[in-house]
């Protein structure tokens, strides 16, 4: 009798120098289902799907595909079987156009010569199917925003003729609208009998799209094929973390009206990206920026930080105006920025966790320019512990950390450096529920210590839950400003899409 499962993995083991990343993992996937993979940061999700994609060789275990035992020795082999993967880290080639990236490795070609018109056409169709006709097939991928890149990698996966698509946290860089687009596509696929393995830390999404759930913990399978529909979120969280219920958002004490204005942004504009943005942040206040991807929020933060040059407008800290386009000035004034794209903007991949955390405030541990490693290391270790970076041990190379843990390291850097103003761009991207609680608490604690904080997040819920005041952005303009508790998620979405209604 035929195997009921499209894919079944049994007792998969993967050992890296330093960790048993996978220690006997099982996974069953049926044709036409959306199978969700849950687990804390470092649980082994990405490693598992890399084994499935033929990118990592497993050190043990058995993989059955359509009932046959298969050795997925290389990415080519996996693709040949009809397994396409969207990796957690955007693995695209900046120097190539969108179309070339989509068909990289299986180019539309005749006798070695690329048929560019055909490739372009097919790419347009794919992008349209994903609801993004505006992304040009001839554009260089390097010039796309993080979100744009994610869309391209999804198109890339769809460009293969597949039976199974693996998506590793595709929604991390997407906002609500984008996620809806994605889900629409996923449903189309499943209707055609294609199976989807879906990884995300947003449990709400699991509810929306998931059929069955497999939970990983510390490289082991906790439970296989749980029904997504009738498993309460609290139970999922308990399975993942071992903790029962989490108090997600910390209480808001409310900002004292006499609290001094720390950050004062006025009429800030930058050619195509945003215009006439103005707001103030008081000591102890958390301001949230909500908006669609591409609404220019990252650009605003980077401009305030001096990493981009404003075409007009001003930024002042404690009343003192900052020199335009000077990171040095911003840093001197006590501003810190946790950037959006951890790999390209945040991390020194070849360096240890310690030096990644300490790099922004090295002088503190270096009286007279000579670094005192003891002090540096322990300070870094404290932050790492506070954010529960796993595996512990601040000497391991950041390269070997899981995506979420890398994100925690970036954040830890800015928490360690005592700033007056903290700009956080997608701080919880790819961070698991457990650690999010910790982060929210930490951010609030900093605020209570008098730090002025600006948070950009694509999760409206997060913005509303965390911030005292929210700014809603659309197409680079502030369309609403007000206390967070006087506005709800639905209203924000309406604002974001307003001209649609009109």
């Amino acid at each position, binding site marked *: 009798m035929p195997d009921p499962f499209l894919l079944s993995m049994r007792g998969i083991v993967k050992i890296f120098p330093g960790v048993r990343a996978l220690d006997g993992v099982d996974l069953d996937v049926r044709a036409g289902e959306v199978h969700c993979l849950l687990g804390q940061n470092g649980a082994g999700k990405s490693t598992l799907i890399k084994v499935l*994609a033929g*990118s990592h060789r497993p050190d043990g275990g058995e993989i059955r595909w359509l009932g046959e035992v298969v050795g997925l020795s*290389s*990415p*080519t082999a996996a*693709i040949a079987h009809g397994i396409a*993967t969207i*990796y957690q880290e955007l*693995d*695209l*080639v*900046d*120097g*190539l*156009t969108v179309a*070339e990236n989509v068909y*990289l*490795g*299986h*180019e539309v*070609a005749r006798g*070695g*010569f*690329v048929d*560019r018109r055909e490739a372009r056409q097919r790419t347009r169709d794919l992008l349209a199917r994903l*609801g*993004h*006709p*505006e992304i*040009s097939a*001839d*554009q*260089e991928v390097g*010039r796309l925003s993080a979100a744009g890149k994610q869309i391209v990698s999804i198109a890339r996966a769809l460009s293969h003729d597949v039976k199974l698509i693996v998506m590793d946290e595709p929604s991390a860089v997407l906002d609500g*609208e984008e996620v*809806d*687009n994605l889900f*629409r596509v996923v449903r189309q696929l499943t209707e055609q009998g294609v199976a989807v393995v879906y990884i995300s830390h947003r449990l709400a999404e699991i509810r929306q799209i998931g059929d069955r759930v497999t939970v990983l913990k510390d490289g082991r399978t906790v439970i296989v094929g749980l029904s997504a529909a009738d498993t309460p979120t609290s139970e999922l969280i308990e399975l993942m973390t071992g903790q029962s219920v989490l108090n997600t958002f910390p209480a808001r004490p409310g900002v004292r009206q006499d609290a001094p204005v720390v950050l004062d942004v006025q009429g800030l504009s930058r050619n*195509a*990206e945003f215009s006439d943005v103005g707001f103030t942040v008081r000591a102890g206040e958390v301001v949230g920026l909500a908006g*669609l*991807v*591409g609404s*220019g929020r990252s650009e605003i933060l980077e401009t305030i930080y001096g990493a981009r040059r404003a075409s007009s407008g001003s930024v002042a800290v404690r009343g003192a105006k900052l020199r335009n386009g000077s990171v040095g000035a911003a840093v001197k004034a006590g501003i810190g920025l946790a950037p959006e794209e951890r790999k390209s903007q945040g991390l020194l991949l070849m360096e240890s966790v310690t030096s990644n955390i300490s790099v922004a405030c090295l002088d503190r541990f270096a009286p007279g320019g000579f670094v005192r490693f003891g002090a540096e290391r322990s300070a870094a270790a404290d932050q790492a512990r506070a954010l529960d970076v796993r595996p512990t041990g601040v000497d391991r190379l950041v390269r070997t950390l899981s995506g979420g843990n890398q994100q925690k390291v970036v954040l830890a850097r800015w928490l360690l450096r005592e700033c007056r103003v903290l700009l956080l761009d997608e701080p919880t991207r790819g961070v698991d529920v457990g650690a999010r609680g910790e982060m929210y608490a930490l951010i609030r604690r900093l605020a209570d210590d008098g730090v002025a904080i600006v948070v950009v997040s694509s999760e409206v819920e997060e913005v509303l839950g965390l911030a005292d005041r929210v700014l809603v952005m*659309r*197409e*680079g303009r502030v369309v609403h400003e007000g206390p967070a508790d006087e506005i709800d998620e639905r209203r924000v979405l309406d604002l974001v*899409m307003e*001209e*649609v209604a009109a």
Partner: protein
Amino acid sequence: MSTVEHAPMSTQTTTTKPNVVARALAHPSVRGLGLVVALGILIIVGLITAGQRFGSLDNALTILRFAAVVGVVSVGMTFVITGGGIDLSVGALVALSSVWATTLATQTMAEDFHWIVMVGCALAVGSGAGLINGLLIAYGRIAPFIATLAMLAAARGLAEIIAQRRTQIVEVDGFLEVFGGDVIGIPVLVIMFALVAVAGWVLLNRTTFGRRTVAVGGNPEAARLAGIKVQRHTVLLYVLLGLACGIAAVMIVARTNTGSSTHGSLLELDTIAAVVIGGTLLSGGRGTIVGTVLGVLIFATLTNVFTLNNLDTSTQAVAKGAIIVAAVLLQQRIAGRSGAS
């Protein structure tokens, strides 16, 4: 549903405008605009300072013939650099190929020795050495700089041993007639350069091989995950360059009528300079043949103008340095003008 349609539309408005520029900028020929200007200025200077002596067709051909050898190797080098590598051994490979081929010719002086054999030998030696480079780098995991540096030393040494430190003078009938001659007034060497350049352009921009080269150089991991055999591809790149060195060797032999272990000395610097000036990223992931050809022409014209004006070598060197810097800065300003961020 409608929202799904519209939301992206809205972003479009913000993105498209910069995108047009972006796309235009991405196009090599425009990135090369600065070079065209630089070359133009150089030509004008030449005409002003040396007048007809510079403007004559003869002189143009002299420049082109001079550029041809460096040009052929530079085209090959463009691939290796775009693919994320570097090759310091090109000069030595040219020397080795030239010596090997010519000693073969001079030793087997049998009547029935056809020049085709000699050419074949040169190409084979070049590709062979390139293959070794590629294997050391792709499978031996030796840094390209080091592997090819080792090859540089070894190949020159071997060339000297083979040639017993003598300059091999070629008397293969037919050879010079073919490669030394010209077709409708255009020297064969120049034609060879043109063919290699065109072939290189097509290969890089229109074939899967070329696109994969960019991927391998730009993001090897992504290339690997896309199912590209990165190691094998890398080897091919170095073989390709080795082949180009073989061709260049044939051209030098035709030019100087000799094979010598001193041929192509410092060729590595000239070619890499031409390629990088041309706009190919030394770190890999972006390459332009048009730019490379322009780079080669600029350097060749520069030398010619210097000679016509009877500058002494020292002054030439200083001027050359200054001009390189000026050219690159000019290039950036023009790119900047076109609105790059």
